[in-house]
């Protein structure tokens, strides 16, 4: 019993350490986001009003918006907006960035979840099969497919998918006008809570192609990672030891091979989330999916840096939080992680 409590103690310490280590990482991240926005020339006022207003009026407008304040002052304001989870107010349409996240975040979440589900449902079994039957046809084919899928950017796969399946999948038809009370801001969940199953089906239909387009971006990595990990873990010394004790081959592969092969995949999963969020921006734009990414592109075009800065910050924080969560899951599965 004392053993178990000692182990949970080391787990708690591990989690606290990881959180403490994340703080400087977030700070560096904020500085990067801030600097990148300022390094690019132009500001929202010059880009929207340049040529329409004369120089003194422009300067007055910029002063009113605080764009002529010293950088440290601007950074301090930015920091405050992040700490209060407010992230500022957009310059072009006077929306709070927080509202954008709340209203459009659900759609992005739905899309990335869909992509992850697609990647896991296809990637895990295919990767395991390829690893188990190494160098057989199933392995060769899956290796080829995963390389192609990994090498194809979203802006190629998405339009191709649209061309091929746009009409048959119901993608092109407009969404049913939804009339469900907003509870979670996640459309599909709201519809399900309301019991409106027609709406749920319709949303799923529209979700299918974007999820596949985005999922294809990472499914190749899934297949490759799982395959190589399984091959390695099946050559493991403990695999031979289990065989020597007469454990059934099926159990050897499942219990010793698969489980050990999936541990590193969880780590990669954390890194893939960053890739997914990046891919989501393009996917949302191409499929007109009402997520944060589509909004982000609009704001970038308007050079609205408060908005871009706010949204990018949120994306970055999400990636940090997810990688923390992945660390915790890893520590739960693999006892060696909690030193």
């Amino acid at each position: 019993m004392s053993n178990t409590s000692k182990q949970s103690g080391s787990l708690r310490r591990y989690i606290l350490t990881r959180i403490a280590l994340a703080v400087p990482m977030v700070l560096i991240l904020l500085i990067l986001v801030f600097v990148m926005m300022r390094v690019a020339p132009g500001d929202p006022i010059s880009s929207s009003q340049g040529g329409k207003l004369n120089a003194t009026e422009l300067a007055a407008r910029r002063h009113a918006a605080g764009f002529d304040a010293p950088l440290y002052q601007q950074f301090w304001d930015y920091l405050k907006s992040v700490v209060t989870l407010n992230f500022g107010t957009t310059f072009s349409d006077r929306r709070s960035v927080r509202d954008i996240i709340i209203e459009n975040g659900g759609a992005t979440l739905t899309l990335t979840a869909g992509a992850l589900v697609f990647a896991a449902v296809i990637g895990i079994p295919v990767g395991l099969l390829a690893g188990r039957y190494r160098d057989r046809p199933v392995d060769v084919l899956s290796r080829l497919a995963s390389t192609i899928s990994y090498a194809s950017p979203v802006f190629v796969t998405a339009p191709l998918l649209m061309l091929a399946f746009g009409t048959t999948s119901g993608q092109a038809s407009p969404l049913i006008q939804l009339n469900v009370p907003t509870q979670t801001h996640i459309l599909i969940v709201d519809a399900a809570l309301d019991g409106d199953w027609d709406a749920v089906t319709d949303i799923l239909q529209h979700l299918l192609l974007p999820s596949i387009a985005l999922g294809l971006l990472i499914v190749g990595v899934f297949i490759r990672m799982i395959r190589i990990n399984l091959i390695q873990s099946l050559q493991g010394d403990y695999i031979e030891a289990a065989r020597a004790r007469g454990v059934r081959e099926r159990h050897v592969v499942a219990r010793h091979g698969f489980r050990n092969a999936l541990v590193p995949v969880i780590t990669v999963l954390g890194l893939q989330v960053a890739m997914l969020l990046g891919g989501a921006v393009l996917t949302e734009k191409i499929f007109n999916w009402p997520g944060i990414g589509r909004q982000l592109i609009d704001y970038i075009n308007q050079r609205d840096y408060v908005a871009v800065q706010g949204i990018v910050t949120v994306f970055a924080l999400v990636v940090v939080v997810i990688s923390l969560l992945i660390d915790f899951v890893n520590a739960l599965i693999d006892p060696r992680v909690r030193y």
Partner: protein
Amino acid sequence: MTEPVLSVRDLRVWYGTDRGPVRAVDGVSFDVRPGETLGLVGESGCGKSTLGRGVLGLTPPAAATDGEVVLRSPGGAGRNLVGLPARELQKLRGPDLGLIFQEPMTRLNPLMRISQHFEEALRAHHKGLPKKEIRARALEALRGMGIPESRYTSYPHEFSGGMRQRIMIALALVLRPAFIVADEPTTALDVLVEAQIIKILADLRKNFDTSLVLITHNLGIVAEACDRVAVMYAGHIVEQGDAREVFANPQHPYTRELLRSTISLATTGLHFIPGSPPDLVEPPRGCRFHPRCPVAMRGCAEIEPPEVLLPTGVTSACWQQALPADPSLVEEFGPDGREPLHAVEEISVADEA
């Protein structure tokens, strides 16, 4: 004399490679009787480990096994393990045939508790064994190895190498096999732990009448722990017999060279056998040891020596014993067969120069 638990006859294990088959074990025969420990010695790369794996049918898929490995359960008839369906062989591994490995550090699944390893091993052979019974049997085996009950639910990384090896032995013993192959069980451990493990293996034989094949390149261990010894070279057993007899009076030149190479307090200069074991894809013609043998004769490079049973009960596969034992072979050996081989080679080298 009691019937052997395990009789190996003309066992061959060949690995397929791009260059052709590697004859890692090439026609090996030996018996192990109940409670007997057979030491299997030889340099690295002589096929010792492959022989151990071959007995349990644990060779990789690219290997072909041929010959006979007959396992006799007490009072039962013998079964040839070679060619047995994988499922049948798997049932025998554990309760009948045990294997202890060289490097204990990596032999336990890092994600499984020690308790789960025992549960898995016991459930594999005793379906529906209640958890309480599993725990009791596992703890008994662990206690025998000096692992306290409080560590039962620990993970492998929480143990030292010596403890892990004792856990591995407990895992093999919990299924009470009558026959165990121990493949260099102490090579990765320090000297004190080594003595401990050897003592454990010796007790095993005393208490449970377990038969053991102890693979090692440490001749000291053989002298101390083995009843009989088989010396392996390049896939063959070159000398086999009572451990004391072989050590006191080694017959095969390879055994002699091996014994001369051991280090003791009296050692003044290190002796080694020049060269290394041959390539097993294309082993040398004749006696496989002849290129390194200090007493090789011309005939040794041409004809493979037969195995000769000497009056002491030791068998040796060397022309030095075969020629006096069977005069009819002399003719086959050729008229100048007894000329020393290496002197001849030296001259030819000089000629070329």
